[in-house]
């Protein structure tokens, strides 16, 4: 495996670590920080791939990632946090050790799932697919276990990161037009989330999703 491949794999491992860190993190502010680190790692991985393969659009992709996920989104999230003066602790539905155990199981599943696919991929970074999938699943798990709306949003965005990483690792990124579209959606989505937080806060005085259990058929 090439050096670039090894570097990407290293970054991938770090991404997985960050994902686990997010899973175990109780504080929303730290979650946002971790999200930012994840974005930075993603950009780095993209950049390394771009350098190694000379795919020019990956440079744009890396730049886009930095702009969006390292700068803009954390900015928005922090602003929201500050404006809403959110309480810092995130309540969990399942305790952290259990979550971690489930997370490890998910990683096993994800790796297992990814092996046949990554063997078919022609990229230098293909080994990272398993990690990308694991990131997606871990983010999913995080959304499930968190009660605070903001934590769910961070989970959602982190899932998006995982997807981007998957795209970069197996196919050197999606076509530019698609990537731009996705970025736009993510950006608008975050804005909408922001609007939402204010509305929710206005209505419920908290961002706890336990208020959101009125619509049911039980």
């Amino acid at each position, binding site marked *: 495996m090439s050096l670039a491949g090894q570097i990407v794999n290293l970054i991938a491992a770090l991404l997985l670590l960050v994902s686990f860190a997010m899973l175990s993190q109780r504080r929303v502010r730290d979650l946002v920080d971790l999200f930012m680190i994840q974005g930075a790692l993603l950009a780095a991985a993209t950049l390394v791939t771009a350098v190694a393969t000379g795919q020019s659009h990956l440079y744009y992709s890396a730049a886009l990632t930095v702009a969006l996920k390292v700068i803009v989104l954390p900015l928005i999230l922090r602003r929201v946090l500050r404006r809403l003066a959110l309480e810092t602790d995130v309540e969990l*539905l399942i305790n952290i050790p259990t979550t971690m155990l489930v997370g490890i199981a998910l990683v096993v*599943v994800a790796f*297992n*799932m990814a092996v046949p696919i990554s063997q078919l991929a022609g990229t230098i970074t293909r080994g990272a697919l398993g990690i990308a999938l694991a990131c997606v*699943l871990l983010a*999913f*798990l995080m*959304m*499930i*276990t*968190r*009660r605070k709306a903001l934590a*769910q949003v961070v989970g959602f965005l982190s899932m998006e990161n995982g997807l981007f990483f998957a795209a970069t690792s197996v196919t050197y990124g999606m076509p530019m037009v698609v990537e731009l579209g996705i970025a736009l959606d993510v950006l608008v989505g975050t804005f909408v989330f922001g609007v939402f937080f204010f509305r929710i806060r206005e209505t419920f005085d908290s961002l706890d*999703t*336990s208020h*959101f*259990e*009125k*619509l*049911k*058929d*039980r």
Partner: protein
Amino acid sequence: MSQFLQSPLSSILGVVAFWLALGTIGVALGRDRDGVRFVYPATALGGALIAWLAGTALGADPVSLVLPLGLPDLPFHLRLDSLSAFFLFLLGLAVTGVSLSAAGYFRAGSSPSPGLTCLQYHVFIAAMVMVILADDAYAFLVAWESMALASYFLVTTDHRHEEIRAAGFLYLVVAHVGAIALLVCFGVLQGQAGSFTFDAMRGVTIAAPWAGVAFSLALVGFGAKAGFLPLHAWLPEAHPAAPSPVSALMSGVMLKTAIYGLLRVTFDLLHTQASAWGVVALVIGLVTALFGVMFAAVQTDMKRLLAYSSIENVGVVLGAIGLAIVFRAHGMASLAALSLVAALYHCLNHAVVKSLLFSATGAVLHATDQRSLGRLGGLIHRMPWVAWLALVGALSLAGLPPLNGFVSEWLLLQSFLFSPDIPDGYLRMLVPLATAALVLAAAFAAYVMVKFYGVVFLGQPREPSLETAHDAGPWERAGLVFLAVWCVLLGLFPALVIRRIDAVTVQLLGEGLGDAATRDWLFLTPMATERASYGPALFLAVIASAVLATFAYVRVRHHGRLRRAPAWDCGYPAQTARMQDTAEGFGQPVKQIFEPFFRIERVIPDPFDRAPRYWSKTEDRLWYWLYLPVARLVAAVSAQVARLQHGRIQWYLVYSFVTLLALLIFIRL
């Protein structure tokens, strides 16, 4: 005109279009009640035309037509053959009489929106015609469900009442269950024939297990509409709820479309195969008949009583069909023809009689605003026209000679009498029991009719308001007279009618009653004169001349003096209307004898009760054994399923997550 005659099918379609146009006119006339009323005589004209056209088509070669409607690969196929012509004839007669009286019935206040009712009425009858004409499954189901829908809306005309809405709901749900069964039935047939047209189904002989499945489904599907046990529960609810002309059509014609369907599927499409089907039909039919008559005997609402009586009659028809199937399966075609003729004749009779009686109850309802038998009585004085015409209907429904109801009963008993020829031992043993059930039902039908007629029309009025009841108007009279005359004609000249009906049996069985039945117009001799004969015209002539002779004898030999005096009544001084026997009183012995049939709740006061109250409710056990358990089961399953939808977003995410993982693992396996 000659061209018009040459194609009865397109002429009938013309009448259907005319009816739909009338319905639209009705809506356009909207709230102008009297204007809407006068649409109905035109409807009656269409009905008469259909009856006449169908009469000419009986025995003629089948005519087919494909309308450019329906699905792209399955346009509406229509076909007019003897079977459909017979049922169209029945429909035409009933529609004519009922529509005439409807012109009188739909007076001010009878319906909140007369225009809409008019539209629904016309859609209803038009749909029934299309049901009978349809020659492919899609057209049939479309017409079938349109019929159900139109009649549902008619049933719920007076939907402000909770119980009417409940009745309508029950009706439509049962109808829908039936329609689903029919859909599957046609699906099975189609699976074997490769096409949804009846022509294709007719062309193949379907293998045994599938044919049995199709027959069972048809029995369920049509049974839900006809009111075979245990799918009868809607009928006594829906019939009373509807406006009387609609009850008349539902009972008189709509139930017959179910019989039509059953005959079509069993004899025409499946070519009747197993004798076991016949046994099933026979048993269900006779149980239904007995059940219907038992419940009719305990009813206290005149329209409910008639509704239960309809259940009884439909049961009798099914029994006859079952017998026909048995005979047919054993290769005894001429006996099968006899049973089938009995079934068809009974359909025709019941259509006319029930139309007559429901129309009569309509007139009563109009004059008195009362449906409860406990608040009627003595109407023969205030409403002589209705009362005397209803007497014809009541006697006919009681199965008394020389009216029409007796003819079909007679034919059916004849065919039962020949059933010992069946080679199967068990079946032979079953037949006497079936005969016993049939005659028991017939005898109780007379009981029920005496109760009905006696309580409504005879005796003293049970409410003071009845003193001011007015007789039916000219339109209602016309309709009643028309139907009563048909009752008498069908009763007096059965041989002439059977000569025509025989075309249907020839079509369905390949063999009819033949010459024996139709040689003599005066006497009905289905097999041979020495075996059995019945000459209602002579019968009536003898009775009539005996009446005249007696009358003359008494007048000539003695005198005709008459004095009016208070009733004697064994000398009891104070006689009030409340001392007469009530509908409940009539029900009481039946309840006692057939107690296990009923679910009775009673509150009986003890001797020291200061404010004694007596109260009793008689209900259908099947309601508690079948309908409520099913409803409870669905509710329980729903409650379990609803637990999944508990509102917490994290769990919803878990569903997605688990689904995803499960699928991923599944796909890797």
